[in-house]
């Protein structure tokens, strides 16, 4: 690369030599004055043509940028300082364009995420319905804007279904699967007559729509309003804990079954079984975000702590108090450690 100064000196030497030659050849009088004037005009012209004009062109574009106006790319083949300045301007502005586009994209994605978060919130029951025989409380806390945990209550003429589910991971994909399963359960609950049938058919449909690495664990309770009987069906979910009011003991029931979406047919591995409940008994459903919550030492909250907390608070409070105090106990255990998974806790108390 020839620098501007090198070019300038070369042009100056050539022009001076030429000028000296002309003065010497034609033997001009006052040759020093002519020489000085010609050199001045030449230097000024060179400076204007090769330095001031191109720099002004670059500055003009910069002024447009600073004024928030539309600017143009500077086209030049020069590789000297002015060329570098022009290329630098073009590259910086190209970078700004990319950043501006990223910011726009980010804003659009954030806006869409906000809408999706709102939509997902609307999928959860706006308020907990009141039931003749049961008190129900739920706490749900997603780890990110869009969670993979799900819960709902679906009431039909003869039955009430309660469930807590957990899709692999969290985020958009998990939220979409969760919404899909919610819609399926809602539909099947109105068409079919048992939790078993709902789970088997939901699995069949879900399997067709999700990739092999995705699945959803779920546990569903069914309250038969006429028989006053509670049954449960597991789909590879966490245990069901039952606080027995009469004895203060905790029953730990393995929910069983196979996670939804994992295999085509779960009819053989799915069972509907009864949970005998007495007055004041509290049935607790939860997602693994509760038992797998870690404290700053990396220890898990675990099922044993959950059972201990349920035994302690079950003897003092109703379903809402139990949910509240278990959440407090969990928060105290976790401390400053960040939440890595969605958490859902549902307590159903037999009146």
């Amino acid at each position, binding site marked *: 690369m020839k620098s501007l100064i090198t070019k300038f000196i070369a042009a100056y030497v050539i022009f001076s030599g030429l000028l000296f030659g002309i003065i010497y050849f034609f033997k001009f009088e006052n040759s020093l004055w002519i020489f000085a004037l010609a050199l001045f005009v030449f230097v000024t012209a060179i400076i204007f043509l090769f330095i001031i004009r191109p720099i002004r062109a670059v500055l003009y574009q910069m002024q447009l940028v600073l004024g928030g106006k539309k600017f143009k790319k500077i086209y030049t083949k020069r590789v000297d300082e002015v060329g570098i300045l022009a290329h630098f301007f073009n590259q910086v502005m190209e970078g700004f364009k990319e950043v501006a586009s990223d910011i726009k994209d980010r804003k659009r994605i954030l806006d869409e995420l906000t809408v999706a978060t709102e939509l997902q919130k609307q999928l959860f029951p706006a308020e907990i319905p009141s039931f003749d025989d049961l008190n129900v409380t739920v706490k749900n806390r997603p780890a990110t804007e869009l969670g993979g945990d799900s819960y709902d209550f679906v009431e039909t003429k003869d039955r009430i279904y309660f469930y807590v589910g*957990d899709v692999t991971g969290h985020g958009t994909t998990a939220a979409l699967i969760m919404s899909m399963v919610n819609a399926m359960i809602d539909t099947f609950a109105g068409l079919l007559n048992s939790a078993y049938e709902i789970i088997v058919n939901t699995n069949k449909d879900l399997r067709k729509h999700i990739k*092999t690495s995705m699945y959803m664990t779920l546990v569903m309770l069914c309250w038969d309003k006429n028989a006053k009987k509670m049954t449960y069906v597991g789909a590879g979910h966490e245990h069901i804990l039952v606080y027995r009011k009469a004895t203060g003991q905790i029953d730990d029931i393995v*929910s069983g079954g*196979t996670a939804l979406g994992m*295999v085509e047919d779960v009819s053989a*591995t799915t069972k509907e079984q009864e949970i005998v409940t007495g007055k004041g008994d509290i049935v607790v459903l939860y997602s693994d975000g509760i038992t797998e919550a870690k404290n700053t030492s990396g220890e898990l909250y675990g099922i044993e702590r959950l059972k201990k907390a349920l035994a302690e608070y079950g003897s003092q409070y109703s379903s809402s108090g139990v949910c509240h105090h278990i959440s407090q106990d969990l928060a105290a255990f976790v401390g400053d450690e960040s939440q890595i998974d969605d958490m859902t806790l549902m307590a159903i108390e037999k009146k």
Partner: protein
Amino acid sequence: MEPTLKINLKETSAGQNYQVVEFHGDFDKAGHTDVRPELDKIVKEFVLADLIFDFADLKFINSESIGYLMEIHAHLVKIGKALKIVGANEHVKEVLQTIGIAEVIPMYNDLNSYLNK
């Protein structure tokens, strides 16, 4: 930084129709990220009959990692091969059984149990 999870591909002897991959550490989100490229390569290049995941030194597994196991299982089944799990500790075994993995991927107490099946 020390990886959360490490895998070790054990050498196969002549005539052996299975290959063992040992897992050491936690198969959580970070562990999954640590081993995925290497494990993907092993699965892609797998030519024997059974791929054995030895979980004897695996301390923890989360739902996303189980999803990844399902992905590997599905891939192997599609090409006429199988994934087997051996040596899972009580915690990992309980998690896998709770979700119903045992219905899909055969599990054995140790490698000898698999060999004597």
